[in-house]
């Protein structure tokens, strides 16, 4: 796949932000390392010991970090349950593949700013270790559909023109019938995807109104382009998902979110949407200082927030409920059966907005499975339905 040489306009390749590649000398012979270096073109590459890389990282600013890709490997397999949050908030039982840490895009609200130690974009190239761990988890849970994703600690497709990792994941998961891989992104560089065939791949985009995207999601493609990219993937046969997360309060948010929902369903067939998640802005308190320091012009901290029962900062519950109700009702206007869920929300919010709440995280997981089976039949591998 050809990589755009330099960022030019909103459709530019996020990978074009990379200005240097560091390679942990221990991973030089990994196939993914060789592929990245082959695709790197004129980007300078340096071999480093992991100790030297750590020392160099300490001196990098966040901006420099976002332009530096470090190829390394996990000490472990790097496949874990989503850390989610604590009781009483409900979490969906997602499994996170930590292949990437950080991302070349720079969203003001990004939790990774305060969560990861490295300012660099880390790419763990030991795919076989991750595959082994996923195979093990799938074998241990033969009666469940396990949802995995690479888009939690990074963006699943942002560096795909360098890594072509989407193909690795889609092909690997197509051999595991009781699993789903969700590739979650804001990128529109989907050139590697259409030729691939998999029934258990879900391509997901996070969405926010254009006003928010342009102000708070730096270097991310414009929202209409994301929806257009999703449409092309739908035409290629993929199932889709969308994440209205974080939903943000700002002057005029109501109309902007209604327009966004309408715009989405205008382009996308609801029958091809596997799920939609909703989540309002939330973050650990220490992120406030980081956001203020890094993004003094951001307005996301202007709104009234409280410290939730899990210690995270959130809008007060009545506000969140009103916001969810507006967005969820509009989604329901377009589709009565698309699976809607909240990310890290209180059961009382589920009750108020959707009329019922799962009794536990396990029950929420089973709601997912039921909805997917009812709406899409088997998720077994072997081509598109």
């Amino acid at each position, binding site marked *: 796949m050809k990589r755009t040489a330099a960022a030019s306009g909103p459709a530019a390749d996020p990978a074009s932000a990379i200005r240097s590649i560091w390679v942990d000398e221990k991973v030089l012979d990994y196939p993914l390392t060789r592929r990245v270096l082959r695709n790197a073109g004129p980007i300078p590459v340096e071999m480093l010991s992991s100790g030297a890389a750590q020392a160099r990282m300490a*001196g990098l*600013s966040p901006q420099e970090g976002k332009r530096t890709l470090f190829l390394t490997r996990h000490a472990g397999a790097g496949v874990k349950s989503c850390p989610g949050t604590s009781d009483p908030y409900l979490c969906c039982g997602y499994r996170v593949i930590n292949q990437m840490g950080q991302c070349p895009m720079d969203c003001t609200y990004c939790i990774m700013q305060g969560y990861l130690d490295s300012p660099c974009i880390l790419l763990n190239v030991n795919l076989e270790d991750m595959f082994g761990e996923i195979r093990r988890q799938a074998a241990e849970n033969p009666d469940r559909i396990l949802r995995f994703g690479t888009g939690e600690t990074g963006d699943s497709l942002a560096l795909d023109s360098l890594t072509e990792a989407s193909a690795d994941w889609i092909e690997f998961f197509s051999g595991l019938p009781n699993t789903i891989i969700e590739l979650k992104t804001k990128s529109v560089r989907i050139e590697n995807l259409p030729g691939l065939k998999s029934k258990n791949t879900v391509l997901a985009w996070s969405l926010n109104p254009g006003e928010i995207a342009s102000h708070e999601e730096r270097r991310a493609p414009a929202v209409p382009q994301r929806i257009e990219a999703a449409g092309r993937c739908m035409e290629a046969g993929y199932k889709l998902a969308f994440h209205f997360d974080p939903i943000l309060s700002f002057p005029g948010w109501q109309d902007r979110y209604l327009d966004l929902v309408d715009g989405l369903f205008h382009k996308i067939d609801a029958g091809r949407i596997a799920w939609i998640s909703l989540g309002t802005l939330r973050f650990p308190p220490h992120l406030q*200082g980081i956001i*203020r320091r890094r993004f003094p012009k951001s307005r996301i901290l*202007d709104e*009234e927030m*409280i410290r939730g029962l899990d210690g995270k900062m959130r809008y*007060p519950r*009545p506000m969140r409920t009103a916001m969810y109700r507006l967005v969820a009702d509009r989604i329901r206007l377009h589709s009565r059966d698309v699976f809607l869920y909240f990310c890290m929300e*209180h059961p009382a919010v589920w009750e108020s907005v959707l009329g019922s709440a799962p009794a536990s995280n396990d029950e929420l997981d089973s709601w997912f499975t039921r909805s997917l089976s009812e709406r899409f039949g088997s998720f077994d591998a072997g081509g598109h339905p």
Partner: protein
Amino acid sequence: MAVSRKTLSINEMRFNPAFRFSSERDPGLLTASIRESGILSPLLLLEDAAGSFDLFAGFSRYRIAADLGIEETPVRIVAHGEDSGRAFYEALLEHLCLRSLNLMEKVRVLGIMEMLGVHGRLRALFLELLQIPDQRPVLESFQSLAASPASLHAFIELYQPPLKMVEPLLEWNPAGLDLLMQIADSFQLRPVETLEIARLAWEAAGRDGETVASCLEGTGIREWILPGDPVPRIRKIQLLKQKLHLKRHPRLSEWNAELEGLKESSMPPPGTEILWDRTLEKPGLEIRSLLGKRTDLLRLSEWLDSERARRALGDMFSVAG
């Protein structure tokens, strides 16, 4: 290290307080020793481009020598450059055997290191000695601290808080910090109280996009910090927190005020309280009643059955439930 050794008149030395790190030790023993044997360990001087000498290490010996009328002392002289950095490192090492440095002293050391052009391995040794991690955010915090107003420096000197504790203040503008320090001084706030007020003001200001100073001014604080204001300090602190909370949480304050009004209108019997989570995050109401006598139970059940209580509690539940 190119260091020249000789004796020099103490009148030829400049006493630069920027280089002074007090040892806080009892000078009695040292005075007796110098009176008896003179200065044995040479003072360290930094020679500038104009040929002037700044006292670099040995401030206690210098003072005692001056007090005792000793005119000449043995000295070691270093010029600016790598040698002066090395000499400063050794002086600091010696000093740190006596006591550790506080936060503002570390800021001064970093400033001196910069002035002397310390870099590379020596810089790493300094940072290790100072127990400062060589990490950009930490070093930036020290830089911000160096540039912060004197009022904050005085606060830190007085209370010796750790860097983590004062970091949130480093992003304030000087006017806001000065006002905060005036409040801390006037209300005799402990550091933890000061930082709580700081956090509330910062959050309230951020919300409105105001500067922290104008946010604090907006609470009418100037009138309360006047000397002789009769309102007790505890009450002033409470009022200030309330005002800042209202600015930070206007809707929450409104919902809580509505709940208070409904609670009043429900007229619960004596000994009965209606409670709720003030952040409204934990849904529901808690009715707590002290049933000391059988008649209390009767009164409680009559109240719960009353139309007034049912309506008010229903309305309360629609906000807090």
